[in-house]
């Protein structure tokens, strides 16, 4: 019988057990779906001249719900914006046993970036390394606090003793640039990949989320599954995506099936269509 989405308490033992389990049936991404999605998205994509469009679960939910997207102006670094970039590698260092605890791992990451900026003065002005290099000490400490909090949350979310599998040390979110419209990319924000010890190549994904587990949680996790599948078409689909809403102490376990992937692909396409429609209306006005 197929697994169904399940809400569980967000305890490290429960999360680890769920992440460790292999899927009853191993499925692969339908290559036809990948081709069809790329073709159809490219067909309705807004013009390249309008800039890059980065889609993730948050953006897609906002667009499909008819909400306005935040326009904060040009991106600039903040301690908050660095938390996953610095905290992610730090958490991986601790989970893989390279670093004994997250604070030293975070400080190591920051030192690495500072050294990079110092030794290569030509680093572009908007880079994280350059920003950190030029930031006052108090801001670097604030960055340390954010990254440390994030790394500690990742580490505390799983019980390594119960995790039957290996943690993939790669820290980048899966990101799929649409062939035919590479200015549109799909990103699945996730925080930990656990490779199954039972099924070669099969993985489960942990995605940390803020706020409370809401109506659109499954859609968000479906997008994570789709982007992971699109980025690794040769590998089996992820067994399941576990979304952890730490603030409410709840987790949603989404078993990944071809139907989930298809639904997520439809939502991506609808989102791009809706964005195109919005842009056309704005231009007409």
């Amino acid at each position, binding site marked *: 019988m197929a697994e169904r989405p399940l809400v569980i*308490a*967000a*305890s*490290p033992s429960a999360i680890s057990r769920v992440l460790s389990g292999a899927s009853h049936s191993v499925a692969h991404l339908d290559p036809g779906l990948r081709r069809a999605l790329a073709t159809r998205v490219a067909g309705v994509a807004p013009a390249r001249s309008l800039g890059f469009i980065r889609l993730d679960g948050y953006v897609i939910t906002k667009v499909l719900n008819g909400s306005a997207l935040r326009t*904060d102006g040009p991106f600039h670094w*903040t*301690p*908050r914006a660095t938390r996953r970039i610095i905290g992610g590698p730090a958490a991986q260092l601790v989970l893989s046993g390279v670093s*004994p*605890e*997250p*604070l*030293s*791992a975070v400080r190591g990451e920051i030192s690495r970036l500072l050294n990079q900026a110092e030794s290569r003065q030509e680093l572009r002005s908007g880079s994280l390394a350059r920003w950190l290099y030029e930031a*006052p*000490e*108090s*801001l670097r*400490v*604030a960055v*340390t*606090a*954010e990254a*440390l*909090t994030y790394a*500690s*949350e990742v*580490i*505390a979310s799983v*019980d390594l003793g119960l995790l039957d599998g290996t943690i993939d040390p790669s820290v980048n979110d899966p990101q799929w640039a649409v062939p035919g419209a590479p200015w549109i990319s799909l990103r699945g924000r996730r925080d930990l990949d656990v490779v199954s010890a039972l099924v070669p190549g099969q993985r489960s994904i942990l995605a940390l989320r*803020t*706020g*409370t587990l809401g109506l659109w949680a499954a859609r968000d996790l479906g997008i994570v599954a789709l982007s992971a599948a699109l980025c690794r078409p040769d590998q089996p689909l992820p067994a399941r995506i576990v979304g952890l809403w*730490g*603030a*409410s*102490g709840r987790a949603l376990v989404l078993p990944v099936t071809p139907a989930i992937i298809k639904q997520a692909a439809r939502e991506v396409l609808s989102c791009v269509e809706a964005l195109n429609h919005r842009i056309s209306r704005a231009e007409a006005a």
Partner: protein
Amino acid sequence: MSIATTIDAVTLLRGKGHRRPHVDRALCGGLRAWLNDEYFALFGNDTITRISRSPWTLTHGQGPSSTLSLARSALVMALCTQRLLGATITHPMDDALSVLESDVTQTPLTYEIHNLEPERFSLLAAEVAAHDEVLAQQLRSVPGAWLPRFHLRTSLALHGEQVSLTAMTDVMFGPPPKEIASVALLDITTTTHDDHITNELRIRALLETLRSGVQPFAVASLSSATGSLALLEVQEADLVEGVHLCVAGIKAALHG
């Protein structure tokens, strides 16, 4: 509960390992079910009203906050983080303000601070420096092995999301518990502790228990105004009292 004026609040909060309670996995479910039952009785057929409360508003009621007090609180919290991570602070106001300015969510507050009249700005800077002196005496840098986490939100939906209990934990220490409770919470307040502090800490302990499924072993509040540390070593009776307080607070909000 103890109230102490002491040096090194974090070590005091960490306490003695042998005093920490064993984890009771069934406790959280029981407390949540009890709260939901009480709210079911309180709300009756009312499926419309939604109430949101925090430990502060449950114990003190809703009250307006001045820009100055909000600014002082945000600036002092920024300094607390710096102290706990072992930073050297030479200009408290400048250091705290540069952290606040980098946070887009604090833009309205930093705008207000920069628009203060020079005398009020100087007064605020002097206050922040005084609070920082207290923090410097009370806080030591925290070992990374304690997994310190800063500014964590709790947001619990109860009774079909009609009741929302929220809290902001300034600092959390300790790895996730296995057999023995291993997490402690620290709140920083820029005001002095009043008679409600024990109840506020009990509610904080309850919310963390409901969020994580396991009770914290200690919850504390450090007053940066006086340097006093209110410390609650959490017992089951405190969580039970926390339930009573959460019920009474929502009842008052519902029926006036």
